C-alpha cells in the first residue's frame, strides 16, 4: 500500500487527487496518510519515514512547492516527490530540463497512475537545477516542534559541541545541518569568521579592536546588525574577512 501525502492550498484540488487515487486503487493501492495546505504546514505535519510519495503543488502561500521539495529531500527517509501545477510555462520547462516528475492540472487518472508507477526519489542535482538559490528557510526541530527560520533573518550560525545554532533578532534556534553543509549551500551569503562560526555578510555593521592577543597581534571583533554580541575573527581569517566587508 503506497502512502501518499497531498500538499495543495486549494481544497478542491486535494479532493480531486483523493478521488482519482480511489479510482485507480485496483491498479495502484494507495492511501492518503496526510494533507497540508502549504509547505510550512507540510513540514510541521510530516514524520520521516511515514510517507512514500508527496504530491506537491508549486504555487502555495508561505512556502512554495519547490522550497518544500528542498526540505523533503533532507529528511532521513525522503519521500518521492511529484509536482502538480495548473499552468506555468517556466516551471514546466524547468521540470522537463531537470527530469523531475510533474502532473498538469486538471490531473487525469491515467497520468496519475503512470506517475505513481514510476516514482523515484528526487535526484539532488535535479533539485539544485530547479532551485539554484537554495532554501529560504532553515529547519529547526526542538522538542518535537518544527520551526522554520528564514535564511534572510539569520545573523550568524555557530557550532557548539554537536549542534549548530542560528541566531536571529528574535532568538536562537537549533539547526540540524552541519556548518560545512551550510557553508556549501549558502556560499557567498555567509563567511567564516572563525573555525566554528559563519556570519551573514549582510548583517555586518563594522569591526573594532578587541584588545591584543598574547602574541601581540590585534584581535578584531565584528559588530552585527540585530544583536549586541561581538563576533571575534580568527587571525587566520582576518585578511579575507577584512577584504569581504570592506567592499
Amino acid at each position: 500500500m503506497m502512502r501518499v501525502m497531498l500538499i495543495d492550498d486549494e481544497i478542491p484540488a486535494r479532493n480531486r487527487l483523493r478521488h482519482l487515487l480511489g479510482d485507480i486503487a485496483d491498479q495502484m493501492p494507495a492511501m492518503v496518510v496526510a494533507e497540508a495546505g502549504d509547505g510550512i504546514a507540510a513540514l510541521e505535519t510530516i514524520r520521516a519515514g511515514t510517507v512514500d510519495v508527496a504530491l506537491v503543488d508549486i504555487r502555495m502561500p508561505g512556502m512554495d512547492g519547490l522550497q518544500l521539495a528542498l526540505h523533503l529531500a533532507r529528511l532521513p527517509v525522503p519521500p518521492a516527490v511529484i509536482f502538480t501545477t495548473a499552468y506555468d510555462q517556466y516551471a514546466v520547462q524547468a521540470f522537463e530540463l531537470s527530469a523531475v516528475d510533474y502532473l498538469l492540472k486538471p490531473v487525469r487518472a491515467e497520468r496519475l497512475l503512470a506517475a505513481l508507477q514510476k516514482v523515484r526519489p528526487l535526484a539532488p542535482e535535479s533539485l539544485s537545477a530547479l532551485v539554484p538559490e537554495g532554501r529560504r528557510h532553515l529547519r529547526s526541530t526542538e522538542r518535537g516542534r518544527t520551526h522554520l527560520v528564514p535564511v534572510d533573518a539569520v545573523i550568524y550560525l555557530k557550532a557548539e559541541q554537536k549542534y549548530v545554532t542560528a541566531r536571529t533578532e528574535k532568538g536562537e534556534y537549533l539547526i540540524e545541518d552541519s556548518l560545512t553543509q551550510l557553508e556549501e549551500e549558502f556560499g557567498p551569503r555567509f563567511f567564516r569568521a572563525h573555525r566554528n562560526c559563519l556570519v551573514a555578510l549582510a548583517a555586518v555593521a563594522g569591526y573594532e579592536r578587541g584588545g591584543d592577543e598574547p602574541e601581540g597581534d590585534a584581535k578584531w571583533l565584528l559588530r552585527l546588525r540585530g544583536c549586541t554580541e561581538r563576533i571575534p575573527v580568527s587571525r587566520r581569517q582576518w585578511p579575507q574577512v577584512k577584504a569581504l566587508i570592506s567592499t
Partner: protein
Amino acid sequence: MAPESESIRQFPGRPRWRADLLRFGVVFLVIETAMLATFGLLSLSGLVLPAVVWVLLASALAAVAALGWVWRQHGETPAMDEARLMALTSRIRPHFLYNSLNAVLGTIRSDPRAAETALEEMAELFRALMHDPRQLVPLSDEIALCRKYLDLERLRLGDRVQVQWSIDQLPPDAMVPPLMLQPLLENAVYHGIEPLQQPEPIGFHMTVSGRMLVIELTNPHESSQMHARGNRMALANIRERLEIFYGLAAYLNAEIKAGHYTVRIVLPLERQTS
C-alpha cells in the same frame, strides 16, 4: 449585428486631437533642433544668406515630416485599432482557466450543484470575452461580471478571497471599455491573495470626480514577488486599450506604498445614450 457606423461611433473620439498635437509638436521640435544646430555652424563660418535659406527650408521640412508622422499614426484607426483591441481583449489567462477547471472537477462528486453553478459562471465569463471589444459596456455589467469571477475564485481559495466594495457613488448608467475591471481583479487575486498566508481584503473603490470616473484597486503586496512580469503585461494591456478608447484623456498608474499595491484608472465619464 450593429451597423459599422454605429460601432465606430462608440469610440469617444474627442480627445484624439490633443494627442495628435502633442505628437506633432514633439516631432517638429526634434527635427527643428537638429536643423538649427547645423544653422549655428553655418553662420559661424560667415555664410549668412545660405544659413537663412537653410533655416526656412529646415522648418518646412520638419513640419512636413511631423505632419506625415502624425498622419501615419492616424492611418491605424479604426481598422488597426479594432485588430489591436481584439488581440488585447481576447487574451486567455491559462492560470485561471486550468485552476478553475481543476476546482470544478474536484467539487463535482462532493457538491454537484456548486460545480454546476461554477460552470455556468465560467460560461458567462467566457461569453464576455467574445463581446465586441470596441463597444463600451455598462459599468454595472462589468461589476456583475467581477462578482461572478470572484465566486469562481472562492470555489478554489475559499474565504481567502475577500473584497471590500465601495461603489455607492456611481451613476447607474456609466459606460466603460469591456473587460477592464476583471483582469485587474484577477491580478489582485494572483499577487495579493494567492501567495499570502494571511491575506487581507482587496479594496475596490470607484467614484466620480468632476467629469471623470476614478477606479482604484488596492491589494496587499509582498516584496518577494516573482511574477512581476505578468502584472506589467496586464497593466500595459489595459493602458493600451485606454489609449485606443480615450487617447490622452484617460490614464492608469500603479504604486506600491506601505505594503499595498494600488492601481488607479482615471477615464472620462461616459453615460449611456438611449
